[in-house]
């Protein structure tokens, strides 16, 4: 799978409370969640995010609550991929399970700036900064993870018979 988009950049320890504040957890509607995505960290996010955009972030992205609403809000807002130095474990698991592509690559995070255009080929583990020409390597996704993301999540993968 290849993802191409412009980068929106954040720092370390972006928690699930700022990704989707609890006051909006009285719904599980994807569009409604997306309309409040990142609200308590970056009020401009929902207005400037374009379909296909990529988030980069520092350490421990998605720390805190287990709310699956957080990766759902990010995915429904149009973000195609999150690249971080590291992810909190429940967020990592939830993202794969709902079919949001995420990858750990500290070098890429350091080598990509806000607004850069990036192309990521996760099957082969190559991230290219198209703005600067820099290239970064990461571990490719195992095939079963690729399948889950292609299917749009774990449930669809099970329903499609790709996982039994």
């Amino acid at each position: 799978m290849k993802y191409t988009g412009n980068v929106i950049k954040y720092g370390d320890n972006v928690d699930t409370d700022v990704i989707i504040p609890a006051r909006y957890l009285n719904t599980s509607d994807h569009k409604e969640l997306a309309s409040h995505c990142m609200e308590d960290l970056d009020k401009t996010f929902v207005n400037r995010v374009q379909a296909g955009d990529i988030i980069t972030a520092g350490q421990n992205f998605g720390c805190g609550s287990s709310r699956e609403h957080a990766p759902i809000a990010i995915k429904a807002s149009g973000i195609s991929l999150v690249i971080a130095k590291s992810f909190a474990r429940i967020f990592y698991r939830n993202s794969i399970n709902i079919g949001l592509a995420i990858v750990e690559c500290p070098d890429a995070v350091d080598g990509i700036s806000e607004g850069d255009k990036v192309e990521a080929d996760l099957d082969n583990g190559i991230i290219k900064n198209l703005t600067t020409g820099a290239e970064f390597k990461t571990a490719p996704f195992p095939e079963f993870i690729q399948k889950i993301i292609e299917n749009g999540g774990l449930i669809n993968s099970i329903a499609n018979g790709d996982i039994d």
Partner: protein
Amino acid sequence: MTQKILAAHAGLDSVQAGQLILADLDLVLGNDITSPVAIKEFAKLNKKGVFDKDKVTMVMDHFAPNKDIKAAEQCKMCRDFCGENDVTHFYDVGEMGIEHALLPEKGLVSAGYCVIGADSHTCTYGALGAFSTGVGSTDMACGMAVGKAWFKVPSAIKFNLTGSLRKYVSGKDVILHIIGKIGVDGALYRSMEFTGEGLASLSMADRLCIANMAIEAGAKNGIFEVDDITLDYIKAHNGAEPQIFKADEDAQYDEIIDIDLSKIEPTVAFPHLPENAKTFDQFGDIKIDQVVIGSCTNGRLEDLQTAAEIMKGRKCAKGVRVIVIPATQQIYLDAMEQGLLKIFIEAGAVVSTPTCGPCLGGYMGILAAGERAVTTTNRNFVGRMGHVESEVYLASPAVAAASALTGMITSPWNI
């Protein structure tokens, strides 16, 4: 300990850190926020029912009693699902409590169990010697359907506890001290294992509080070695026969950290991360607007007893709103019978029905811009208890009670 429990639940003799396994689950938990998402996913699987009606539990605690119409719809969806699937352990208003206080109290978790919960603080049950970890709604849906979950086996950090805690120092101070030391990602993907001769001095309330906040260090789970205190607790709450897993003498750890409990002081985590832990010699006067004593971290009877001991016969400072939330109906009843609620009310505090409410900025104590709260909850992220310009200071019930009396963040040693 974690690796042995996981091996036993995966039908393997042993497992190694990094290994991917499929494990059988003894309990699958959800609440009124995470379960609706899981129920929608579950429907897509076209399963006839849940894998075991006695091993799925839903607790209406976050926005219950219903805070608004949408919350009411979410609780209704859970109620209908549990009714249709004949789920034994569905806890609604009247029976419910904050999930992580309720389940051990009801005897639903025992030593050696493998538990997932669609709530990050599911790691609490490690205090009982169980492997227990937070997951999302999709994992909960699959868990409800097949009674299994996949895990990457974690490596472990061993915390070797010695000594015993001083007066008005509790499990909360221990875990804030530890998170301050290792950071909010200090145990990322790993297991925190608590052992050592210091265990003997830690009550179950202290242990449940420590394991509860393992997630605040990024850990997959926190787990305590089982001893007589654990076994007495499980027996007293009619829990299932405990399965005891002990770490091998030569078990591998990423790191071993020694903690002398007698050196721990009352500790406060400053905004906006639980790792910003400070002792009282490190800061001056900080005025507060609100105090919350409750949550899955510190809403247990022992927590209320400590707070009441400090507040007895005294008044809350003028201008400070003090909210006490017993974590379960049983705790509420016990606190009432022991006269604790009278002490709180006479001091000028309000006592609420069990709910997670203010901890996650849901309701029952939301902060305005510029306001500060000292709370016994578990997270102090930006906007966690309300406005993005409000501030949350995490502390023990003793610190919270002392602060309620003075209107400043106050050490219980100075009251």
